[in-house]
């Protein structure tokens, strides 16, 4: 069933709210009132419910099925966390009300910070970044501030980034005026300390390294890399997107990391919400801690103060209007409290176990770019095994839709040809993993048996067949307009 756009069913005079009558006053708008119509149609409440309920039913979701998007961490979102985030003392307080009337909220921030520092072994945490990429920006800003403070702002203008990195890494570096120098990966998919040493120089400000990396591998020379970076007077930014593989098992602080963002919507399971909101707190090492953005917390006895101005500190300043994603903080802390230290560790281990189980169950029918070796929380396949079948990674992924699954991450990381990155997470039962594996094996057999049509035509059993992305980009239609 097709669902029209709200603009096609709404009417400008229809409304789904009733409002009290306004007090009778003379307006004080200084002649700036709107004269023209806005053109915004409305719907009554029953129509609104139906419109959005129907739309929702065209979506896949983690609640409805396994969602094996590598690097995205689609795991269970406990509803307790939604309930907690809606407690009036968290959802219904204003960021600028007197701090004396929000001590519970500040204590929540402090508790969250304690957990994050303990799990990462780091010295400080900046809570305000709004998402992972914003956290990267925060960390790199702290690094740039430290470099400037050392008087090296003019000379250190290169950031080392491996080829397998998330796109946000080079984009963040570029935003701050750094140029990017790509560090090659070794044949095993990881970065060698030797390669880093060769790329380092007096012009290098930092390295941005993801660990576990985007191939799902632990950077085994990470400690040596950190030492080399530090020896060269540069900083080590760690992309923490994959922290969920090691939380409670190993601490980035022990690797020698200077700054790392943590995607609360990945490791601590705040809902992805169709693309946000996220939250990207950044943990900082001793030497970067002084540059942390405002606001930050300061406790004096029973009282917690939120420091909102940088004057008198080395803080690099403010990244966002208020204090960060409180709603996400509540959810993340609820996740942490529910899991406990033991549960967080177990979650990491189960995530790694599940990814390796998928790897071991598919290794005979699919190919791995870096050989068959233990992976972390996600397993990377390439398309070598599809050679000659006429089936592409894209086709294979779309055929998964017809089998009731969301596809895995495709064509990322760029270091693998036709990459397929699978992250099952710790939230799946063994039965669920077994069914997934069986489906993929059956699809793989079908591809190898030459049933290319099944793949070229896929998906056939979804709300839509393949959508023409080229048309969308060539003639962008980005909004509805009245005919």
């Amino acid at each position, binding site marked *: 069933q097709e669902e029209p756009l709200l603009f096609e069913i709404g009417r400008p005079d229809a409304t789904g709210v009733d409002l009290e009558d306004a007090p009778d006053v003379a307006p004080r708008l200084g002649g700036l009132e709107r004269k023209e119509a*806005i053109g915004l149609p409305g719907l009554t409440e029953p129509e609104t419910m139906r419109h959005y309920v129907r739309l929702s039913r065209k979506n896949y979701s983690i609640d409805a099925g396994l969602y094996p998007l590598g690097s995205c961490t689609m795991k269970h979102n406990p509803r307790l966390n939604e309930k907690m985030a809606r407690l009036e003392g968290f959802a219904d307080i204003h960021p600028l009300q007197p701090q004396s009337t929000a001590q519970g909220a500040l204590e929540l921030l402090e508790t969250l910070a304690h957990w994050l520092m303990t799990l990462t072994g780091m010295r400080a945490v900046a809570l305000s970044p709004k998402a992972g990429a914003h956290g990267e920006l925060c960390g790199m800003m702290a690094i740039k501030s430290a470099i400037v403070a050392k008087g090296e702002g003019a000379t250190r203008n290169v950031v080392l980034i491996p080829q397998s990195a998330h796109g946000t890494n080079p984009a963040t570096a570029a935003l701050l005026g750094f140029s990017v120098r790509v560090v090659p990966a070794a044949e095993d998919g990881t970065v060698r300390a030797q390669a880093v040493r060769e790329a380092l120089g007096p012009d290098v400000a930092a390295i941005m390294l993801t660990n576990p990396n985007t191939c799902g591998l*632990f950077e085994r020379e990470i400690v040596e890399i950190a030492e080399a970076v530090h020896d060269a007077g540069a900083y080590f930014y760690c992309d923490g997107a994959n922290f969920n593989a090691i939380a409670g098992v190993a601490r980035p602080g022990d690797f020698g990391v200077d700054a790392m963002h943590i995607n609360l919507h990945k490791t601590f399971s705040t809902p992805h919400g169709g693309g946000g909101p996220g939250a990207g707190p950044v943990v900082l090492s001793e030497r970067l801690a002084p540059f942390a953005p405002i606001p930050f917390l300061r406790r004096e006895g029973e009282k917690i103060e939120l420091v909102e101005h940088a004057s008198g500190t080395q803080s690099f300043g403010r990244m966002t209007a208020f204090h960060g994603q409180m709603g996400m903080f509540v959810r993340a802390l609820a996740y942490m409290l529910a899991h406990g230290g033991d549960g967080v560790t177990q979650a990491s281990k189960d995530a790694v176990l599940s990814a390796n189980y998928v790897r071991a169950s598919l290794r005979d029918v699919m190919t791995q770019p870096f050989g068959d070796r233990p992976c972390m929380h996600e397993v990377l396949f390439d398309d070598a095994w599809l050679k000659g079948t006429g089936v592409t990674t894209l086709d294979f992924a779309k055929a998964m839709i017809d089998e009731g699954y969301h596809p895995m991450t495709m064509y990322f990381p760029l270091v693998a040809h036709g990459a397929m990155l699978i992250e099952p997470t710790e939230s799946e039962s063994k039965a669920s993993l077994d069914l997934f594996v069986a489906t993929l094996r059956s699809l793989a057999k079908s591809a190898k048996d030459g049933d290319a049509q099944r793949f070229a035509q896929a998906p056939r059993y979804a709300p839509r067949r393949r959508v023409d992305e080229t048309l969308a980009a060539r003639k962008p239609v980005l909004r509805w307009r009245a005919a």
Partner: protein
Amino acid sequence: MRYHPLSETDRRDMLATIGVANVEALYADAPASTVLEEPLDLPRHKSEVEVERILSRLSARNMSAGRVPFFLGAGAYKHHVPASVDHLIQRSEFLTSYTPYQPEISQGTLQYLFEFQTQVALLTGMDVANASMYDGSTATAEAVLMAHRLTRRRKALLSGGLHPHYAEVVRTVSRLAEDDVVRMPPDILGAEDLIGKIDDSLSCVVVQTPDFFGNLRGLAAIGEACRKHGALLIAVFTEAVSLGLLASPGAMGADIVVGEGQSIGNALNFGGPYVGLFATRHDYVRQMPGRLAGESVDADGRRSYVLTLSTREQHIRRDKATSNICTNSGLCALAFTIHMTLLGEAGLRKLAKLNHANAVALAGMLEKLPKVDVLNKSFFNEFTVRVNGDAASLVEKMAAKGVLAGVPVSRLLPNAGLDDLLLVASTEINTHEDRAAFVAALEETL
């Protein structure tokens, strides 16, 4: 653990399939020195009841807006959100889905984003809008960067009426990216001469209306001056509801419009998550940051929606991207869209009128007090009052009496000689009793 489906038996069987003795073996690549030998010093897992107890206790230590007469604004506004909005955004299919990279099974998200983009474009009077940003302040910083790219200049002029936090966010990025920013002094009465400052070196002028002090700003003349000098006019708002009653920034000549969308559909949340709105002219769309949903067709020719123009974005363009942004504020944008749909034009206008009328009524009451001056000539639902004394301690004292009275300007602009200024906002949630309680507490305290 209630969240972990694997049993010990499952784990054993899986390890056997993998061919390792234990899960520690899978971490063999991690240097031994980094693998923890002892559990971290963190509490053990807790039951739901225990988690609820801990968090409820923290929650109870905060004075929530709904419990008291409440008059805070300054960039975050308490409005009533219909129950259906919060219900709908909690649907599994919206809450627990990812970014709609697979359009075949994401039309729900894609269509509402397309609706959101259209609503934002209509409200702001612009051609196109993106699928949301983190919040109004970061959207402003992104707008400045976009203006730099479009004009190939790197100097921005910020109005003294721009929300101080927004100005700081712009300045932080600019300073570290080595761009220039000129920030005008606080402009309490909306009387600054921006036009006189505009020259050919500027990439953009950033003006907020209603401004931080509540003044309404006409933008047309500034827009003229910008065009003359090849600069772009960036219009900012922090109170989206005002667009229901005020001339749109687009109609006044803005090139980029950014703002905070929290007012529609979203709770106060102690500052986040909120939803940044970002709109611009059609010609500039390829320099726009952030996600975009576009219309297309599927293999059967059916109208479909899909993420588009992603060659602007970091996951494709890497260090050449228009922004490093990856996440948007999807669920908050959905709340905005649903609430806006419920309002419709008629409801939004009525809501805006009610906000304005409540604020005018409050201003009228305050103007009668001897020790209080309302400074604004014009305003929407928020205005600045000069009080006889320190506004911050006044607010503290009134809070102790159970009235959350407003935001002292010094909270955002300390050491600026503005300690006697208080920002007071009044929305549709305020009753006559609230206003009376405000005035009574104020008189008692002053």
